[in-house]
């Protein structure tokens, strides 16, 4: 299409066109963009997994983001300017992720980019964000932000990372479930974080990892991997992602029935899965890590009530309009909280446009304590400006009569580890 248009337009015609545009701009009454900038929307480029293996997360990240934007806009926006979401599907694909950032920066003039979950997409996109000098707020859980692998433009202020999560889980697993653990995890960056940091934390507690079973995240049948789990396994640590997670847990149930090892899973293995699905009864009595408890708990805060209601999630963690449409509740709060952090950062830095991007990053870097509030319904957090990573409470729930009931809440301090990088020393 482009070629044809180009071929038909002569240089002279093009000059005429430019001249006429110029005269329109010069006409009285025409309000140019620069004059309207003060009330023009702040554009957030939203890198969303609409398709590919992250689609279920993408759907709910989108709903949460829309809900947060509505709340922020209804209360006057940011510095008097409304938020506008420019969403772009990245297909849960690193290459397309980088292309999406390019579009945000060059075509849409977005102020910031935001919202990526899958770690391989973050790792594939972040270098481009650095080159484009586009603040990139990820909601991913990967340890790659705090490990120093990325750059000053990439921040993760709204969700905790795998290293801190698994470190806080290790003592609970050892004290309550068993000392001999086999790990089943997806065979890519996110899964490798689990493999490396849980095994390190667990072994330092005196436990033992007796086998590690990696599974490709695009796999559609899992039974063939289960015989690799040694028989003397006391605890099966499972974390799985992708469209086939339901198949994964169902086949696990088929394989073991009620005779298997004790189960400790990351909720990812059943995220967006209806737990009343036939074949999942065997999960009763097993424990899960949850970033944010899917089921409204007995000690539910008003903030969670407010947030749950705004996004349209019922007390079972499903959509209020369709009880079978189960949310990714343990993760998606990160979008809500990140947008509120962007708001705060822009307000504190007096952000007025793209030229203030560095000021925005510095403002976020200077944040530390984030108390439990409507902006942070998952719980209080402590942000580390040097590592660009937030730290917060982790929840362990036990499947009881088909519902996940809170069994343990870790302290924020349980999740701390020594800094591995100081991004504030990098230049913009």
């Amino acid at each position, binding site marked *: 299409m482009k070629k044809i248009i180009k071929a038909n337009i002569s240089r002279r015609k093009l000059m005429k066109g430019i001249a006429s545009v110029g005269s329109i701009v010069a006409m009285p009454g025409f309000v140019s963009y620069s004059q309207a900038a003060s009330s023009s929307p702040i554009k957030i480029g939203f890198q969303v997994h*609409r*398709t*590919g293996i992250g*689609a*279920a997360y*993408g*759907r709910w990240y989108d709903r949460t983001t829309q809900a947060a934007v509505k709340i922020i806009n209804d209360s006057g926006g940011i510095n008097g300017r409304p938020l506008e979401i420019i969403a772009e599907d990245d297909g849960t694909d690193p290459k397309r992720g980088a292309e999406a950032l390019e579009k945000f920066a060059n075509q849409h003039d977005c102020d910031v980019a935001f919202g990526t979950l899958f770690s391989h997409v973050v790792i594939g996109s972040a270098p481009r964000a650095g080159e484009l000098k586009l603040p990139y707020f990820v909601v991913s859980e990967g340890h790659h932000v705090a490990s120093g692998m990325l750059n000053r433009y990439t921040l993760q202020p709204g969700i905790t990372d795998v290293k801190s999560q698994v470190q806080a889980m290790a003592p609970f697993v050892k004290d309550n479930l068993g000392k001999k653990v086999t790990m089943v995890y997806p065979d890519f960056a996110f899964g490798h974080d689990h493999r490396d940091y849980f095994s390190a934390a667990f072994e330092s507690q005196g436990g033992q990892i007796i086998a590690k079973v990696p599974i*490709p995240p695009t*796999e*559609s*049948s899992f*039974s*063939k*991997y*289960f*015989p*690799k789990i040694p*028989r003397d396994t006391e605890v099966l640590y499972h974390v799985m992602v992708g*469209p*086939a997670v*339901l*198949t994964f847990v169902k086949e696990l*149930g*088929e*394989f*073991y*029935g009620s005779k298997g090892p004790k189960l400790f899973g990351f909720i990812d293995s059943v995220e*967006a899965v209806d737990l009343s*699905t*036939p*074949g999942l009864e065997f999960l009763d009595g097993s424990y899960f890590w949850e970033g944010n408890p899917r089921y409204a708990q007995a000690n539910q805060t008003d903030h969670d009530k407010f947030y749950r209601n705004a996004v349209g999630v019922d007390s079972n963690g499903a959509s209020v309009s369709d009880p079978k449409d189960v949310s990714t509740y343990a993760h998606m709060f990160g979008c809500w909280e990140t947008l509120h952090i962007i708001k705060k950062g822009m307000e504190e830095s007096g952000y007025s446009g793209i030229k203030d991007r560095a000021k925005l990053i510095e403002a976020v870097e200077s944040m530390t304590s984030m108390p439990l509030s409507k902006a942070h319904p998952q719980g209080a957090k402590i942000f580390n400006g040097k590592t660009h990573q937030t730290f917060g409470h982790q929840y362990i729930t036990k499947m009881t009569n088909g519902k996940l009931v809170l069994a343990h809440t870790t302290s924020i301090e349980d999740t701390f580890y020594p800094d591995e990088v100081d991004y504030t020393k990098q230049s913009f």
Partner: protein
Amino acid sequence: MDLGPYLLFASLEGLVHAAVLSLIALGLSLVFGVMRIVNVAHGEFFMLGAILTWWVSNFVMGNPALGFLIALLIVPLVVGIIAMFSDLLILRHLKYDPEVTIIATIGILYIIQQFALMTFGPDARPVEQPFNIRLDLYWFGFSAYKFFVIFSAIILLFCVWLVMAKTKFGLILRATQLDSEIAQAFGIPISTVYSLVFGVGAAIAAVGAVLIVPIQQAHYLMGGEPLLLAFIVVIIGGLGSLKGTVVAAMLIGISDGIISVFFSPNLAKILATLLVVVVLLIRPNGLFRTIRI
């Protein structure tokens, strides 16, 4: 797990895999054998079968077995009709030119896939098993439904053989396969036969999908891997050979099961592809193919 039960488990997994694979490959082989075209969209007809099964099972309330049975009757028919239409609307006008039909079926692949994405969405959706029975085999559990899949595939393969070997329709198909011009001279309406075969080929793949979807979930990208494996099976077995297809599907399916369980699923794929190369070098017409193309 001890070696004996380990092997038993791997073989059972492999058999389920082989059962479904032989159905998919059979459809592909039938289309190639009779029409001499390579249907790259074959995997998408399989996917369409899975997605339609989800629609049907959601539409039919009550016992999941009822929805499953209705899907087993309706879905292959619908997929077959869609395939026949794509033959009537597209392939027929290309005069079944081998190279052009490959391009055309790639187009059909994308049309079906994107249509599924637009209507069904990007999520994997589960279909409840018609019966949810776990057989406890002491060392491990195995779903009774998986045995049903193996059993159904065997019956269906037998039926296809019966039709091909014992009926007039089978005779017409075999005649067209041997020499379409002579068959035409004997009054066989070749173009109708072609449409029917294209439909039946897709319908057989759809049956495979109906059987597998309670185990694997329906997803708009699920057609890719079975297509690749079906090609491997058909090349090893010999394009157009029923016996070869079934034997090759067993070989690939069971070895995939055993190698995946004992070593790694990637190694199973590598070895299967290697086998294709070996077969192409040593027996270019496939293990069982006797008719010259």
